[in-house]
């Protein structure tokens, strides 16, 4: 699955880079291994694991810790093991499988990998390119419903993020790139801590910008001046609220 953000929403993609991921992977073992031993090894390979990023990778090549939140064995057939893995962003599944094979003294490699979850996007709410094309044609012919079932508002992506809601009067300043000052705020999540990334929304729940909080929720409530949120990215076009 591949979440794609369109036009003015494009830059929302960066918030997915740090989200936990879920994949279904097909592992091929190089020797016959009993089901019991496979299960035992998966138990060992759950929780905090140590990983050396592959040679071809976007990050510095040094051992690092990654969390594997859960493993579910879907099917074992001979030397092929199909499993679901839920892991921290930046976990290399190909490498995970390679290390799994080393642990068993058999060797193993990855035959196939499908991502099944990134943030709120899952294999339950995905669509094919073909369906997108058809629904766009239908939209052009006057029926917008199929297309509206495929495209979700950008706000879908920040549903689990920490949020602040601002008064109408603050919106256009934010669109122009101003930081958010405390008097502009109407409501906020109660669990914001300093330096958290927060989504800045209108009272209609439209995404205005993403920013970094300068203080925690209680301080935002108390403060009558000062910057509450430093701006990172603006999404809403200037003039939407003026």
């Amino acid at each position, binding site marked *: 699955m591949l979440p794609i953000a*369109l*036009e003015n929403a*494009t830059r929302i993609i960066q918030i997915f880079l740090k989200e936990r991921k879920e994949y279904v992977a097909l592992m091929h073992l190089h020797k016959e291994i009993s089901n019991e031993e496979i299960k035992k090894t998966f138990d060992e390979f759950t929780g905090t694991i140590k990983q050396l990023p592959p040679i071809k990778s976007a990050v510095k090549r040094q051992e690092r810790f990654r969390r594997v939140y859960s493993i579910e064995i879907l099917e074992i057939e001979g030397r092929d093991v199909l499993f679901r893995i839920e892991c921290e962003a930046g976990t290399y599944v190909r490498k995970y499988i390679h290390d799994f094979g080393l642990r068993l003294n058999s060797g193993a490699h990855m035959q196939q990998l499908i991502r099944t979850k990134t943030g709120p996007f899952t294999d339950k709410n995905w669509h094919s390119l073909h369906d997108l094309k058809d629904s766009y044609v239908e939209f052009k012919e006057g029926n917008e419903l199929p297309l509206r079932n495929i495209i*979700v508002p*950008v706000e879908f992506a920040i549903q689990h993020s920490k949020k602040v809601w601002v008064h109408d009067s603050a919106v256009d300043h934010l669109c122009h790139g101003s930081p958010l000052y405390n008097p502009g705020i109407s409501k906020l999540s109660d669990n914001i801590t300093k330096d958290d990334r927060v989504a800045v929304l209108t009272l209609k729940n439209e995404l205005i910008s993403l920013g970094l909080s300068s203080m925690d929720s209680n301080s935002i409530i108390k403060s009558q001046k000062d910057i509450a949120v430093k701006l990172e990215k603006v999404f809403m076009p200037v003039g939407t609220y003026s």
Partner: protein
Amino acid sequence: MNLNFDQTEKNVLLKKESTSSDKFGCKPDERPTEQLIKFGMININKQQGPTSHQISDYVKQILGVKKAGHGGTLD
């Protein structure tokens, strides 16, 4: 899909009550389709075949948008 965050979330603190004017903007669920295309996301079923970059290009072509960003290659 429920994007009525303030009603669904219990853990919201009120600083100063106010309402939003109907003159500006609109709720995400009510965004007109032309606007939704420019301020929306699509979850594409990617398995084997084209790269993330190619899929992203197809999506741009189909919808006639200039920019699109994809959620990364597989780790």
